[in-house]
């Protein structure tokens, strides 16, 4: 995906960014069109970015979700975080209750209660079943480009 996107503008403005994907095969994994039943790359549109953002962010910028808690506790969250739940925690394959208990109560609640977030944080929670058929369309619905 070579289209202009939010990451290019973030990098140009000197902002930091990172994607946290739950059940990512490995930290920094950018495998395209992967669906292992839990992690689906189509839900992680940042791996489809090419050009400058991809080169710069090929490593830690696309991390496993386990890094999120440590980055939060160490106050090292980037300016822009893109959180990708797995197929259960996004309430697609599991109930909304499960998603709420695991994804939000367990992971997002600590973020919202943190001093860092309370100061100037903004969390956008997107729900979408847009019927997108390609990763590009899906990523567009995630507000990346």
């Amino acid at each position, binding site marked *: 995906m070579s*289209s*202009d*996107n*939010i990451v*290019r*503008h*973030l990098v*140009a*403005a000197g*902002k930091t960014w990172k994607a946290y994907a739950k059940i990512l095969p490995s930290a920094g994994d950018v495998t395209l069109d992967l669906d292992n039943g839990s992690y689906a790359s189509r839900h992680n549109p940042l791996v489809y970015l090419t050009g400058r953002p991809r080169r710069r962010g090929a490593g830690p910028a696309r991390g496993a979700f386990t890094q999120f808690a440590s980055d939060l506790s160490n106050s090292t969250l980037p*300016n*822009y975080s893109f959180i990708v739940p797995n197929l259960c925690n996004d309430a697609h394959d599991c109930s909304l209750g499960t998603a709420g208990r695991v994804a939000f109560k367990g992971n997002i609640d600590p973020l*919202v209660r943190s001093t860092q*977030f*309370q*100061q*100037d*944080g*903004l*969390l*956008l*929670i*997107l*729900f*979408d079943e847009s019927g997108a058929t390609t990763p590009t369309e899906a990523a*567009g*619905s*995630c*507000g*990346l*480009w």
Partner: protein
Amino acid sequence: MWVVVSAKVKRGYQSTTLYQHASTLRLTGKVLGLTSFPNQAATAPAWTSSSRREAHTHYGARPMTFKHKLSSRLALLKDRVVLASLAVLVTAAIVACELPVRAVDPAVRLRTCWSPPKLLQRAKTRPPTSRLSRS
């Protein structure tokens, strides 16, 4: 649909305006201090929760229907009525604080202030102002 969580948004606010995904992108960039936006975000209507009036007049992504306009205007009117009522109450409170007729020695300064108990109770129990938006 998306939900906004922040200490700086209006609590419980629900927008009735239709926005497209590019507006999400624009909002994201705007919050992060970007001055340029990719693709359609450059011209997309950006949502802001700074005021209800602004949200209804500047950032509509499509023409509003008559019913939508009516509800919007009623909401704005309601705000004005609340402000006007508040102004009246404040004026009443100031008037109520006027010095009473001096029936005693002028050297003794006596000042009384009357406020409706319900008003005081409301002010104490009113939750802190915060903003929450959703569209």
